[in-house]
């Protein structure tokens, strides 16, 4: 196969941009979907200089479900074939507001959960029709167990992780691999307000993990790796203990 053709949803996110830079250095052909055309054009120009064979910016607001199919068609029409899809968009809802503002909570759930599922289903189907490809989706360690501090975000990511697990089983026979990416704390604009400690990772480190996971067709990866044992322990804590912990 010649150089990779890659589609990224949410291309202006810090993790997506760092990942795109690694692919650009490999000379990949890139298609970038984002909500903000001006910002995604600046990123596309950067990727071209870094070595991307091509970088096509295009508009998509993931909350506009009706626009998904058309955006996907345009991407395929432009690139001809797509080898890898990375779904990377996301927001970090304010949990406190979610508890009192139902509309806000549902909107945030739609962006982080339903829209991701809709796009994963749609794009996986197109990969399956094409007969090959990898679908990688950024979920989160927050989806492994609901915590008082961000369970709306966590439940949306839990839905995504569970959906991907089923999708992976279904497409296993059809030449499409599905990669669930579960980053822990990442130092990005989305988490600007947090105090950073030992467990925090840079978007560049997460990006290297994403590229590696896709290269190796891994199923579920924790980024960085140490979140796997941490979350294994957290999942094992019995509920009657867990409800007393502040997390």
């Amino acid at each position, binding site marked *: 196969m010649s150089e990779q053709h890659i589609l990224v949803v949410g291309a202006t996110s*810090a993790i997506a941009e760092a990942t795109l830079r690694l692919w650009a250095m490999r000379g990949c052909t890139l298609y970038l979907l984002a909500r903000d055309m*001006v910002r995604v054009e*600046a*990123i596309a*120009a*950067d990727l071209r*200089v*870094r070595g991307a064979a091509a970088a096509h910016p295009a508009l998509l607001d993931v909350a506009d479900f009706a626009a998904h199919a058309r955006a996907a068609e345009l991407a395929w029409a432009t690139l001809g074939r797509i080898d890898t899809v990375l779904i990377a968009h996301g927001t970090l809802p304010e949990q406190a507001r979610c508890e009192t503002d139902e509309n806000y909570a549902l909107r945030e759930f739609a962006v982080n959960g339903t829209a991701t599922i809709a796009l994963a289903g749609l794009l996986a189907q197109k990969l399956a029709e094409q007969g090959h490809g990898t679908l990688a989706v950024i979920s989160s360690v927050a989806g492994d167990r609901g915590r008082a501090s961000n369970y709306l975000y966590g439940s949306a990511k839990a839905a995504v992780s569970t959906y991907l697990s089923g999708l992976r089983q279904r497409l296993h026979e059809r030449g499409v691999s599905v990669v669930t990416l579960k980053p822990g704390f990442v130092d990005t*604009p989305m988490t*600007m307000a947090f105090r950073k400690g030992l467990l925090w990772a840079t978007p560049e480190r997460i990006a290297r993990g994403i590229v590696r996971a896709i290269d190796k067709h891994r199923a579920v990866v924790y980024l960085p790796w140490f979140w796997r044992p941490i979350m294994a322990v957290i999942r094992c804590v019995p509920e009657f203990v867990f409800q007393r912990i502040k997390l």
Partner: protein
Amino acid sequence: MSDTLQSWGRYPRATQQVIRLRDRLAPLPALESHALPRGNGRSYGDVCLDDGGTLLDARGLDRFIAFDPATGVLRCEGGMLLGTILDFCVSRGWFLPVVPGTRFVTVGGAIANDIHGKNHHVAGSFGCHVRAFELLRSDGRRIVCTNTENADWFAATLGGLGLTGLVTWAELQLRRVPGAWFDTETLRFDRLADFFELSTHSARDHEYTVAWVDCTARGAALGRGVFSRGNHAAQPAGAHAPHHVRLRIPFTPPFSLVNGASLRGFNALYFHRAPKAVLRASRHYLPWLFPLDHIQEWNRMYGPRGFLQYQCVLPPATALDGMRELLERIAASGTGSFLAVLKQFGEMPSRGLLSFPRPGTTLALDFANRGRRTFALLDRLDDVVAGAGGAIYPAKDARMSGERFHQYFPAWRQFEAFIDPAFSSGFWRRVSQ
């Protein structure tokens, strides 16, 4: 978010809000008090600090915009690290025209301090190779500056310490190189006069020259050191790029590891290890140009009180006697650093109103912060520098008086008119009193 971002010398301390910038096309964020753009925080004193204000962290402005592989003209955002540019351009046969002693500075920082390197005698300062940049002011105005268009803003911003506005992007002229390697020569010299002779003699055939000087030597050995010179070269047959073994000083020791005993020991050893006759070697650019970049957070070695770097330049007429006096005073104090650097600047004029590089000889070294004693010594050094008609480098400074600054940088009054009304820095408040 409030943060205690520090400068590289970790003195003085400052507390400031930090706002991270990511989008060069967005207006500046709303500011509650004074603010200062900040690159990677590698300047030593307080030119990159704004106590009680807001730092506009520009490191997220790190995108390339355009590169022409035929002409070597590169346009990129202001927060891009020089190291990222080198990673990109060296394999394509191009090199930055001027690099400082670390590759961890941003393009915006290189402009704001009009930095220089070991090739100053042929290339001049960084600003000599800046073709254009855009300045974003707090009132939303964007000013594209070149040597001919908005030339007054261009001159004010080169060496303008970030005070004239945010550099959103810049266009640089890179230079062609045959590869990532250098043909280098090293030899030691026994006294200060020999340094001047070697510099003059080496400047013709060597694009890069610099000397390490033993700042503990006195008497007949005063000003002894090790001279290095080199030229860009292709990769020699059989050579491999160095492995990225990165060491790190893991924590701040409770006291400075640099003291009288370690200093004399290291300096004597370093001098005597160096070859008496010319030693030729092929070196990759990373270890040769940026030796300290391999030790992450080396600034921790000076302990919790941090250190002061001192860099001055003396004009040619007074350089030999002045340097002798400076080195005598430093050696007599028993303080100083492992790495004291001497370099002969060239004649190429700097373009900035407040640019530091000017014809003459420059000396740079660190002093562990031992409080009043250290400050008194630096004041005594200032007396020599001022008397010799020299200057101190703001990027390294944390303590020079306003009076001295005005003497070293007479254009400062003219410069004041270009300062963004919303911008300030610890350095500027100190020297503009």
